[in-house]
């Protein structure tokens, strides 16, 4: 069992590259984060910011090649997943660390009943008999609040609605009572009311089990609802790390600020929604220095000089912006 507050998964300086015909592309660059028991950590970023790639790399499900882990460690309770053999890693990934994906229709095997797919976890990792495993699968479906679970274990993924299917994915991920759940955009494919139900369910199940949850999302609304801490990523770098409440209240990095500014709110009613000018850079042509400087309202010439380091501004508060961190430091003096 996990101790309360124990660091379960600690990613340190993870760098992932993809080999392309036009040379290597760095999708994740020196990323670090950690998640504790009972904590919900949100990794926030637009598509292409490297948020999914980092988790796929450490769980070993990233296609390698073309992907390649250049450096870094990902320790599950002190054991480095990246240095492990595939066989050793399979004992942890799928058992102690499990994953939920975005599109539940394509993420579930269309020709196997949902019961069989959930039961597979018990059969492979616990060596249970088919009967016992199916019984446990039905229990799991019940735990994720699928009505008439016992009747639905034999149904196929296409016979469920989107929200119900995502519950099935959750049941499968939580079947073995994992320590860490990595939820990769679990609500993106769902409509708003169902999104809220799924997030609530994840939060409830987390509280029951005291597990660590890594929630990958591009939706600030999702983060503000449920996450304890947030890591903001941009073009493969972590640009800000903070407790959710603080990040929402006082964003330090201009990118986080821009994201917050473009959230629809009651005050903005009737007016055009502000946006961050420009588009995210192609990973093949990341600007020198700070990757965000070409879209940044406060950029100066110095921003092009070198990649801004992630600096601590306050306890548990880090940001990678020479304009803001130096400013904050000056204010602190």
């Amino acid at each position, binding site marked *: 069992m996990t101790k309360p507050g124990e660091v379960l998964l600690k990613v340190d300086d993870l760098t992932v590259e993809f080999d392309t015909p036009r040379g290597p592309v760095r999708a994740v660059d020196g990323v670090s984060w950690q998640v504790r028991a009972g904590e919900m950590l949100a990794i926030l970023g637009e598509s292409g910011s490297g948020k999914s790639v980092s988790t796929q790399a450490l769980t*070993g*499900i990233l296609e390698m090649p073309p992907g390649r882990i250049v450096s870094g460690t990902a320790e599950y309770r002190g054991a480095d997943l990246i240095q492990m053999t595939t066989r050793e*890693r399979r004992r942890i990934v*799928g*058992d102690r660390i499990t994953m939920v994906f975005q599109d539940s229709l394509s993420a579930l*095997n*269309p*020709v196997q009943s949902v019961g069989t797919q959930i039961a597979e*976890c018990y059969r492979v990792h616990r060596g249970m008999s088919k009967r016992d495993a199916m019984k446990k699968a039905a229990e799991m479906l019940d735990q994720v609040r699928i009505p008439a679970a016992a009747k639905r274990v034999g149904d196929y993924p296409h016979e469920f609605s989107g929200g119900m299917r995502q519950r099935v*994915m959750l049941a499968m991920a939580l079947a073995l009572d994992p320590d860490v759940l990595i939820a990769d955009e679990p609500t993106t494919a769902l409509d708003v009311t169902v999104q809220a139900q799924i997030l609530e369910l994840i939060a409830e199940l987390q509280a029951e089990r005291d597990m660590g949850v890594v929630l990958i999302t591009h939706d600030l609304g999702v983060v503000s609802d449920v996450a304890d801490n947030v890591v903001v990523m941009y073009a493969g770098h972590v640009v800000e790390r903070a407790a959710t409440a603080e990040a929402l209240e006082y964003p330090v990095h201009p990118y986080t600020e821009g994201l917050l500014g473009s959230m629809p709110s009651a005050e903005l009613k009737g007016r055009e929604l502000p946006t961050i000018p420009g588009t995210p850079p192609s990973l093949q042509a990341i600007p020198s220095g700070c990757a965000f400087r070409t879209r940044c309202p406060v950029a100066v010439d110095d921003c092009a000089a070198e990649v801004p380091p992630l600096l601590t501004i306050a306890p548990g508060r880090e940001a990678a912006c020479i304009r803001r961190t130096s400013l904050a430091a000056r204010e602190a003096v």
Partner: protein
Amino acid sequence: MIRFVLRRAVAAVPIGVLVTLGVFALVFAMPGDPLRELAGDKPIPAAVLAAKRAQYHLDDPFIVQYLLSMKDILTGHFGTTFAGADIADQLRLRIPVTLKLTLLANAVQWTLGLFFGIYAGFKRNGWVDRSLLLATLVLLAVPGLVAYFAAQYLFGVELKWFPVSGVLEGFPRSYLLPALVIGVLGFAGLARLLRTSIVETVNADFVKTARAKGLGEQRVLWRHILPNALLPVVTFIGLDLAGMFGGAIITESIFNLPGLGQFMFQAIKLKEGGVVVLLSTLAFISFILINLLIDLLYGVLDPRVRNV
């Protein structure tokens, strides 16, 4: 399910009428007089000719001839060929020959196709995969006729491994050479299809899910990738199996196997409309049946198309 089968059977009736009518019309439109061709160079007395013509209704209008043939087929009175052989007896003798050839050829084709397809799909860009692509191109470029005669010459005449033609050595020896040639010519397409299907499935999201569940590579391949990758192949196999009768017309004639294909070939040569239509009807019924079986099998393999 029973409703599905019945609906398919009913839908097959008008198609069957069109097919048989078309085939009969084609035979009717062929030039030449069947009875004179049968007699060869020998002169036939006019009275005999007239009697024979009356026996086979050759002087009746087209549609009457067609309806009489269909009546015979549907009531099971197949009658005799122009040469006097009992058609029902002929069918009893010939159907097993064609079945043996077709099944053996398919066994060769499926075994090779599934084996190489799965291997090439799982070991992409390996040497088996690359050789398969080359082999496919070569095999698709070789006309069947060339391959049959070349195989007869090489393995029958020169190496003497197999009989050149005929069924004197019985099953399976007499059938091996034609079955192998058909199988080898046909397997490459099947293997390529399966290979491509596997490659597409490997990148599916549910395969990522399976890996994230910590499953071993073998389990991912056999339990998750293959059952999904096989779906398009089942359709291909069905169509291929149903089309085998057409191929049998040529192979049975070249290898002198007394099956339905050879029967068809002779009947066409002699303008025996009744026999041609009978055999076409048989082929049509087997085509419909095989397709029905494939659709039912597909429903078993893919829950998404059940109950439709």
